[in-house]
């Protein structure tokens, strides 16, 4: 990409290689070793004990609940993210900037505070929760509560991926579509969606990764009932506190696997987008 013909600082071999060595050592210490440690610990009791840990009744239940919550969270935030991105990138209206800032709140708020917010409102003493109790509906300390806080914590991801991309692509293609007579659904389906599909996939993967891994907010509203309201990260905590370190890491390895998959999808999507940008640049020449 970069032609070495340019005069740039830090290109003398000794500077370059000492900086690279330092950076790689840090990456190894800070990221690679911890990643490796998860799997090393998980398999420290051998493959059989790993399988036994992963297929434990409570672990399986935790996996099921976690996947169930993620499977509901992703479509909810996907729909919301697409509508919000369409709104703020395709229209000018007062309050648009505020809306973009508001959507960042879940990123800035401590997950424990997020959980508390929901507990206060929907808990049995809460303003809404107490009314629901009258109808025997309990949201907190059961899966709907876990779902609600997970939606809260992950709601910015899809929108945050789409907004910069859609802003950069502009609305001319959609306008061209309208002059050619396309309806709203035709516009989205045939013009917008093909242009944003990779960012959308990445947004979904991020949402999923965070939904599966959320700990703080979920631990406030779950009640940690083993085999009932225990998600996989909470299960990891329980096992760890029970001094079942190998079990905790076995469950962790599943979550780490999802994280690695997320990184892979991200790299792939970025590679696709770079190729698209490359094509666009050629277009301008």
């Amino acid at each position, binding site marked *: 990409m970069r032609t070495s013909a340019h005069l740039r600082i830090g290109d003398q071999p000794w500077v370059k290689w000492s900086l690279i060595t330092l950076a790689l050592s840090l990456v190894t210490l800070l990221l690679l070793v911890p990643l490796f440690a998860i799997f090393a610990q998980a398999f420290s009791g051998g493959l059989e004990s790993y399988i036994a840990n992963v297929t434990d009744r409570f672990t399986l239940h935790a996996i099921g609940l976690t996947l169930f919550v993620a499977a509901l969270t992703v479509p909810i935030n996907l729909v919301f993210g697409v509508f919000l991105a369409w709104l703020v990138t395709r229209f000018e209206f007062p309050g648009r900037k505020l809306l973009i800032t508001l959507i960042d709140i879940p990123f800035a708020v401590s997950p424990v505070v997020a959980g508390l917010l929901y507990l206060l409102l929907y808990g049995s003493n809460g303003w809404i929760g107490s009314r629901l109790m009258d109808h025997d509906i309990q949201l907190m300390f059961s899966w709907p509560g876990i779902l609600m806080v997970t939606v809260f914590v992950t709601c910015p991801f899809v929108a945050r991926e789409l907004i910069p991309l859609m802003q950069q692509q502009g609305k001319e293609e959609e*306008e*061209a*579509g*309208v*002059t050619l*007579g*396309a309806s709203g659904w*035709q516009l989205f389906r045939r013009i917008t969606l*093909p242009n944003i599909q990779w960012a959308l996939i990445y947004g979904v993967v991020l949402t999923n990764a965070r939904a599966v891994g959320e700990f703080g907010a979920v631990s406030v509203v779950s009640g940690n009932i083993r085999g009932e309201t225990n998600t996989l990260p909470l299960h990891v905590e329980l096992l760890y506190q029970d001094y079942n370190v190998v079990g905790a890491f076995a469950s962790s390895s599943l979550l780490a696997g999802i994280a690695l998959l997320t990184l892979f999808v991200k790299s792939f999507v970025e590679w696709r987008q770079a190729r698209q940008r490359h094509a666009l640049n050629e*277009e301008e020449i």
Partner: protein
Amino acid sequence: MSIRVENVSKRFGKFQALEPLSLEIPDGQLVGLLGPSGSGKTTLLRIIAGLESADTGRILFHGDDVTRVHVRDRRVGFVFQHYALFRHMTVAENIAFGLEVMPKVQRPNAKEIKKRVHDLLEMVQLGQLANRYPAQLSGGQKQRVALARALAMQPQVLLLDEPFGALDAKVRKDLRRWLRNLHDELHFTSVFVTHDQEEALELSDQVVVMSAGKIEQVDTPQTLYAQPDSRFVLGFLGHINVLQGDVNQGRLSQGDAWITLNGHPNAKAVECYFRPHEVKLQTQPSPTAHLPLKVSAVSLIGAEVRVELEADGWSSPEPWEVGISHAEYNAWQPMRGDRCYAVPEVGHLFSSDKTEPELIQWSQAQQSPVVGARSSVVSLFASA
């Protein structure tokens, strides 16, 4: 289809993009909206298309009020400045799009669509590129795809936003000619936006000159050039040379410079504009004009030699420019610092209270006999 714009205005926040304005575009004409950036020409075009809504006024197509008709239903062909081709569709898919999104009842069958796309591709001479993607096309090719896509709907109105703005000079000329032919062949009404005066004058049946959200003048290219009716239009259509001064006893003067204005009442702050081809250069002043100048630069490129001059003994807001033929140049051989006199044949006089100019002509008879005197350089000037 004729287009009528009635009292249309538009404001973006604090910025008045269009003052209330009206315009009549007869059926079958090719009309250019000409103006500098920020003059409101693109806004007007987008309002006609329905891509922008006007704050006041109405748009009529063929006498029908379409002001509140959505752009989707206006059935205009619109060509975007940066083409706005669908980047993930091939050339053929781009052109077919408008046909494919039609409601089922109106939509031609697949075979018919294929044939129409094929015909359009032939028309824009891109038959062999049907399966390419926009990123693989040159600017001129993209522009033609954009046109074909807009024409697929057989619109009666074709609107083009800076259609040749992003293309290089050669391609631009070819496409211009091609668009003119296409227009003559298919008889739709076309409106295009440009900031290039040459393009507007060459291509249009009528030119609409705009500035600061207002229409300055609407005329055929010939009339527009011969009788520009405001300082702005005059200035926008090319370089102008200016003499600013006061009129006293039939003479407009400032410093050492003056021109005769027989019978003109005394007035302060009067400006007279001369275009480069309306002025001759002589070694002597004439009885009707005394405009001493000093050569500051000479540009030889082009059909004419362009001489840039500084006011000598008076002041001008900008340097003067006068075009002389290469023959005149070879005879005179002007150098930097050479002194000479400008003798105007035609001037556009603006009094301070009027926006419209008064056309002043100095007849040959009135001109100095010196012109006729066979002093070496001048004779060539006079005969040119």
